[in-house]
């Protein structure tokens, strides 16, 4: 009897212990921390549908002239009007001329007819629907992804969308930002919402410290080189680690900007003091008591320490050298001391033929040193690298030097009218002009060559933009993606050089 009792007691105890373990496990799962992306997603969820899609509320919609006309046309055709007009902010950027003379005449002076029609159509649509627009010669005009953060129109904690795949740029502020297509532009205009599916979480951590002369652009190119152009497909990427934490907002924007080149629609960085210092005092940012309230919320915008990521990629900052793309995809990238690969270096047949085709298009041969690539043009600009810090970096390299004779043209195109003004106040324009570079009006310019700035067939260009696809900067043009400092050094040397030797 005594024995039986003991057995029973032990049995009870075991059950209790099992129960506790189960409870702890369940609690662990429920309480497993949230990632930054989880938090932003949850905060904007209007409704979940049975099929796993969700209706996500959009706080800020940025509009430019290329992907919006058909959306406005659609609204008109369906007799719809914008859901919340003040959530929208527009500016023309993709095909505004960057030459001062043509630019000074405003919209009607744009020489290219199709560009003129698009820019004019944006003005008309914004007028008709009552949307705030920084029009062509407004000092606040610029590339949408430069203008949004600069104005405080994109803020931490927001959902930000724009009909442009580099919208992830705004994720640098701790926002959930991504590009959308034109019918989604129309959808956001009409409903202030998007139908979305949640992505998986990826953490890209860059540990340690960067060496001198190595910049945010090199970091993101190295990341893409590591994960490949499809590595982030289906993921929202959070960039973290000491290197990212130490970067300025400009640098963080450069990194988030190119999330899409790594396959991810969303790139983000957690909010910290650097974020708040950047946002404070911007025209569209909250002020006074509302600022304090906002900051309290924004301080929560980071991944919890026990958050679970579906994938984690780690890089060591000290290993990253200045990067140069040699091929026709951003993943075809090498450090400056690299050697152009040979198709036989790849076992995967798709990669091998990709390499073959890239070498042919780029006019390069296997075994050639990156530093032997001669340049015909240089482009410093684009939503990746046209902010004040980028221009300072480039100016520091070219100061007191001259552009090489074989470089036909070296363009510097500030990202916005305000960046241009700031640069001029610091005398950067003079440094560029004295070195033989051209100082232009703000816009996308040669990033995608929709305006008059483009590459000729076969020309090699050191470009601070984000895409090196065939024909991206002009029919037959050959793009090499680099940092502003590397582009500047290449302009002076006439070929790629290791900018670390220059500083």
């Amino acid at each position, binding site marked *: 009897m005594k024995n039986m009792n003991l057995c029973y007691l032990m049995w009870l105890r075991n059950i209790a212990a099992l129960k506790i373990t189960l409870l702890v496990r369940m609690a662990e799962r429920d309480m497993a921390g949230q990632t930054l992306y989880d938090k932003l997603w949850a905060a904007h969820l209007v409704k979940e549908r049975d099929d796993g899609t969700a209706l996500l509320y959009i706080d800020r919609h940025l509009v430019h002239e290329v992907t919006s006309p058909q959306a406005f*046309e659609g609204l008109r055709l369906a007799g719809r009007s914008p859901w919340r007009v003040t959530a929208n902010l527009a500016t023309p950027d993709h095909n505004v001329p960057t030459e001062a003379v043509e630019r000074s005449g405003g919209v009607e002076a744009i020489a290219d007819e199709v560009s003129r*029609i698009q820019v004019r159509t944006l003005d008309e649509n914004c007028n008709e629907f009552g949307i*705030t627009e920084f029009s062509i010669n407004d000092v606040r005009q610029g590339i949408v992804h430069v203008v949004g953060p600069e104005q405080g129109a994109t803020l931490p904690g927001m959902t930000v969308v724009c009909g442009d795949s580099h919208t992830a740029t705004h994720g640098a502020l701790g926002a959930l930002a991504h590009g959308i297509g034109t*019918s989604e532009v129309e959808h956001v205009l009409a409903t202030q919402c998007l139908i979305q599916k949640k992505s998986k979480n990826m953490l890209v951590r860059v540990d340690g410290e960067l060496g001198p002369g190595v910049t945010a652009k090199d970091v993101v190119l190295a990341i893409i080189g590591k994960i490949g152009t499809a590595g982030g497909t289906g993921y929202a990427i959070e960039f973290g680690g000491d290197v990212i934490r130490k970067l300025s907002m400009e640098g963080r924007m450069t990194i988030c900007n190119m999330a899409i080149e790594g396959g991810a629609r969303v790139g983000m960085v957690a909010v910290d003091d650097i974020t708040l210092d950047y946002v404070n005092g911007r025209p569209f940012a909250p002020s006074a008591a509302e*600022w304090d309230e906002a900051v309290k919320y924004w301080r929560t915008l980071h991944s919890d320490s026990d958050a679970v990521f579906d994938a984690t990629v780690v890089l060591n900052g000290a290993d990253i050298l200045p990067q140069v793309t040699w091929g026709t995809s951003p993943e075809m990238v090498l450090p400056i001391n690299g050697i152009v690969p040979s198709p036989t270096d790849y076992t995967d047949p798709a990669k091998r033929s990709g390499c073959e085709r890239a070498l042919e298009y780029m006019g390069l041969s296997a075994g050639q040193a990156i530093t032997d690539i001669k340049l015909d043009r240089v482009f410093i600009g684009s939503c990746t690298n046209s902010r004040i810090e980028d221009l300072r970096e480039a100016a520091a390299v070219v100061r007191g030097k001259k552009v090489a004779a074989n470089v036909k043209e070296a363009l510097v195109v500030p990202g916005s009218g305000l960046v241009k003004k700031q640069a001029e106040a610091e005398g950067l324009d003079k440094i560029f002009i004295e070195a033989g570079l051209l100082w232009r009006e703000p816009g996308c310019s040669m990033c995608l060559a929709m305006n008059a700035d483009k590459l000729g067939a076969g020309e090699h260009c050191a470009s601070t933009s984000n895409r090196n696809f065939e024909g*991206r900067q002009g029919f037959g043009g050959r793009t090499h993606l680099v940092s502003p400092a590397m582009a500047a050094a290449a302009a002076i040397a006439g070929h790629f050089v290791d900018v670390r030797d220059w500083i």
Partner: protein
Amino acid sequence: MKAFTVLDGIVAPMDRANVDTDMIIPKQFLKSIKRSGFGPNLFDELRYLDEGQPGKDCSKRPLNKDFPLNFPRYQGAEILLARENFGCGSSREHAPWALEDYGFSCVIAPSFADIFFNNCFKNGILPIILPAAKVAELFTAMYADEGYKLKIDLPAQTVITPAGESIPFEVDEFRKHCLVNGLDDIGLTLQDADDIRAYESKLMTKSPWLFREHIA
């Protein structure tokens, strides 16, 4: 939007990986403010030997005779058979517009880029993901057989080959519902207008700074 139920169409190849949207429709055509008329410039840089420009009459341009879409056997194709990561690159919706305007209603590939994949559904194009090995088989069968057709049955979620093989594919329920019924997304979302308003009023209390008017 036109409804998509069953399609029995000629298959044409786009036999390379990572076809980006610049390749599908080069950027100079993005300047149009219309939604239609992009078909003649689909794959422009591959299809023609000269540089395409908006307004240029494509019927007078020199064709690249080596590009499959110019082969007589693929004329009238409605299904595009492609490789990995189709539609990568920029988010331009002109890419599905160009495919649709050309006459394609379906693209089959082992994988697609996210934004392009979404944009297809919004424009009445069905993107189908099949295993790479299956796609490779289809390529082989298609090359071997002039006039090769596939039957796409969206309600049944199957691709049926001329040999009678029925290959199942996945498609999101909601997307399928919209495609089959030719429903436009906005109309569907506006059925939830009350939910959106309720969310907005909560947000106004929680984050009032998002609703301040700004003077231009």
